[in-house]
């Protein structure tokens, strides 16, 4: 345990309630100089709330916060920043249409004679700051033209530059990064750690907890489970602490999958022949069958989402043909796809999934109602029945179906979106990263759900960045690389084989 005068932040007895939810109960948390401290827990465990209390976005009902031994009560994220605590959120909240340099130094621009901005100095300084983090890019380009990883580095650099931060909070920074970008981020984190900055690292990836963190604090249902030295804690033990139970062996899923492969229909439900869209996805052949789960593997940006969007009609293909039920598909739009019995659970939950201000009930029946049209309204009573059925089936934790979806945790929101598509009763269900940013327990639930849907005769397309997950759930695996379909594996294949295909050493 680090001695107390090394502690930058000490939170004691934090308590916080929201209407209907006791989000934090008597939680202690401390953060030492020069450490990377992982904060883990299932969805709704209270990680976000704890961070919000620390950064002044929410006020604690009870408890104290001390920074450098002085008791403080952060009033707002800005105030917390002045106190030396900076946060980089999951969604980068900088201005994509300003240049990288402007984003970094806005509010701290070097000026000539006190008014006109010295652009050369601004750009040079921005370049210097990023170089310290090991990033060398053209800082005069708009931030939005760079990958999310670079944007995140820029956000980190800004947090350090602007506020002279002592503590840096990284909220799910790796959830949309590739493996290489993640490595880059970790080296930046280690560098900052060596400079004596304390880092809170929130993540769902347990590998990353072990790779980079010194200590780990586990929260469960709003209570503190404990803080541990990462190296001294076994992975199985960590999962047990997070879930509060021993995780059932996921391997019986594989057996289950093998059994269900007998149900796969011979006849294809949907057939794509050289289907493609220029500048987006090279033409591909694909046949999907009832009762089968087809996994899409590949790196971020390899064309997985593009393929899903073509199959669902979000984008209109400009080459090739698509045949469903022996008829060529002409009308490409989500509405037409839903009418055909195709559903897509999109990748970006916030932007493409939830309708934040509508209730859980309304979010669930939305696609079903859209399919029925304007004038055949689903009766309110029936709406409640549908909503309650899926709240129970998917174990969505909410006091009632009338709760606004924005008040739910990320994992529960994802379940509601899944429920929306299950309620529409599709024959082909495309799931684009359905388990991103979701805790281990829910992940397993969703994987099982996908398999049971296939068993019921549905055709599923399962997209995920996590290879083991794709392997575990899919009967057949399609590998994508550089916006093209590379190859297809049916039957037995191991992680290594797929990785080789992704890397390009097998064609």
């Amino acid at each position, binding site marked *: 345990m680090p001695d107390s005068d090394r502690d930058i932040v000490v939170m004691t007895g934090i308590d916080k309630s929201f209407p209907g939810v006791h989000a934090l109960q008597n939680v202690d948390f401390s953060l030492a100089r020069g450490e990377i401290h992982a904060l883990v827990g299932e969805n709704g465990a209270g990680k976000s709330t704890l961070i919000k209390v620390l950064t002044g976005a929410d006020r604690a009902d009870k408890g104290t916060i001390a920074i450098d031994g002085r008791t403080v009560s952060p009033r707002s994220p800005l105030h917390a920043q002045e106190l030396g605590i900076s946060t980089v959120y999951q969604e980068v909240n900088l201005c994509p249409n300003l240049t990288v340099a402007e984003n970094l130094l806005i509010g701290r621009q070097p000026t000539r004679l006190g008014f006109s901005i010295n652009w050369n100095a601004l750009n040079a300084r921005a370049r210097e700051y990023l170089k310290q983090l090991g990033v060398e890019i053209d800082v005069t380009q708009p931030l939005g033209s760079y990958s999310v990883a670079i944007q995140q580095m820029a956000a980190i650099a800004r947090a350090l530059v602007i506020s002279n931060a002592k503590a840096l909070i990284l909220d799910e920074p790796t959830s949309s990064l590739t493996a290489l970008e993640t490595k880059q981020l970790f080296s930046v984190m280690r560098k900052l750690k060596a400079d004596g900055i304390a880092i809170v690292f929130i993540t769902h990836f347990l590998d990353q907890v072990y790779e980079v963190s010194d200590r780990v604090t586990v929260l469960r249902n709003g209570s503190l489970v404990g803080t541990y030295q990462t190296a001294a804690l076994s992975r199985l033990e960590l999962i047990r602490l997070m879930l509060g139970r021993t995780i059932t062996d996921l391997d019986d899923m594989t057996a289950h999958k093998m059994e269900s492969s007998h149900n796969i229909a011979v006849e294809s439900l949907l057939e794509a022949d050289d289907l493609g869209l220029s500048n987006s996805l090279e033409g591909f052949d694909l046949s999907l069958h009832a009762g089968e789960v087809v996994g899409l593997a590949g790196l971020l940006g390899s064309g997985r989402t593009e393929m899903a969007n073509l199959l669902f009609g979000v984008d209109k293909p400009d080459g090739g043909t698509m045949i469903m039920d022996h008829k060529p598909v002409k009308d490409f739009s989500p509405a037409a796809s*839903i*009418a055909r019995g195709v559903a897509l659970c999109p990748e970006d939950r916030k932007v493409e*999934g939830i309708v934040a201000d509508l209730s859980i009930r309304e979010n669930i029946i*939305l*696609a079903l*109602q859209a399919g029925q*049209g*304007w004038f055949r309204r689903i009766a309110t009573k029936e709406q409640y029945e549908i909503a309650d059925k899926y709240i129970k089936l998917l174990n969505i934790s909410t006091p009632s179906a009338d709760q606004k979806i924005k008040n739910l945790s990320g994992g529960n929101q994802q379940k509601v979106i899944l429920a929306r598509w299950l309620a529409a009763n599709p024959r082909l269900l495309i799931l684009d990263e359905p388990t991103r940013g979701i805790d281990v327990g829910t992940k397993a639930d969703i994987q099982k759900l996908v398999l049971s849907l296939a068993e019921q005769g549905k055709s599923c397309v399962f997209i995920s960045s996590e290879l083991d997950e794709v392997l575990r759930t899919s009967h057949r695996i399609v590998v994508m690389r550089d916006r093209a379909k590379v190859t297809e594996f049916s039957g037995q294949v191991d992680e290594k084989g797929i990785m080789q295909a992704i890397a390009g050493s097998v064609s």
Partner: protein
Amino acid sequence: MNGSFSRTWSKLTESMLFLPTAALLLILIADFFLIPGFFNIEIKQGHLYGSLIDILLHGSPTMILAMGMTLVIATGGVDLSVGAIIAISSSVAAIMINPTIVGMNLTDPRLFINNPQYTWAPLWLVFVVPLVIATLCGLWNGMLVSYWRIQPMVATLVLMIAGRGIAQLITNAIQIIIFNDTFAFIGNGYYLFPFSLYVAAVVFVGAWLLTRRTSIGLFVESVGINYRSSFYSGINERRVKLFAYAFCGFCAGIAGLIIASNIRTSDANQIGMYTELDAILAVVIGGTLLGAGGRFSLMGSAIGALVLQATLTSMLSFGVPASAITAVKALVVVVVILLYAEQTQTFLRGVGKVSLRQEATR
């Protein structure tokens, strides 16, 4: 008892109808103390008569406009052209009753001057044609917004500017006097209550049924909150917007008929001037968020229109000169902005919470 009060209080303050209703009550209470005889209602010539009735009579067109505007604002848009559509619909109606276009001596003036039965076109057409044209105007707005992806404010500005010109062309820039008594009845007549109030009630009930008994209301809200999610869910987001603007145009058409009937003239230059701002203000007072869209309340908007009219009627009764009324409206805007600010909302909810907490500590 205290607990049940604070629970009721928090339910009340969370309701969209809380602020508009409270505002209306406050104005009426102030009137009760400040303006003697404000609440007097008499029966004259077989119908009700008094300041309160005046509010209902003159508030009706704004109420009708606010119904259409509510849907447009809920989709995240705004319609600045309703005033111009009023000018078009009233001009079309007037010219159909009394086609005295210069150089086109369609009728002998002796036929219609002071003739309370005269109409050139059949009266049912006088109602139907302007409404069809007004709806087409709304469709035009909707086309620009949903299919051409033009910012709603810019898109409807086109018709706001062009509309009065079109109305002038229709009437050849002449103020047309309407002698027909049947037409004049819809804006002046009474069946105990003003006839226009019944029209407003029918539009309100119609709009409510159309949005809440079908799935249109849900789709409008969904598109306003997150049009991408709505698109992914299979909602035809463009058609929803097209509908909202067309309905808004239709409502403006009705308002145009009532206003023209009320003043028995069609003055393309002046009629319905600034009514778009009244309609927007009524919707905002009613709790639907301008700009953000999403959740809407037709009842809120109807009450919002009454709040606006009650303020105006009270000010006039109180002796504020009509020329200073715009300043009063500006004051209403400021009050509304302050009332709907997040801080005020939190404060209002806080009042309930404090008493809950007191109860808990007891």
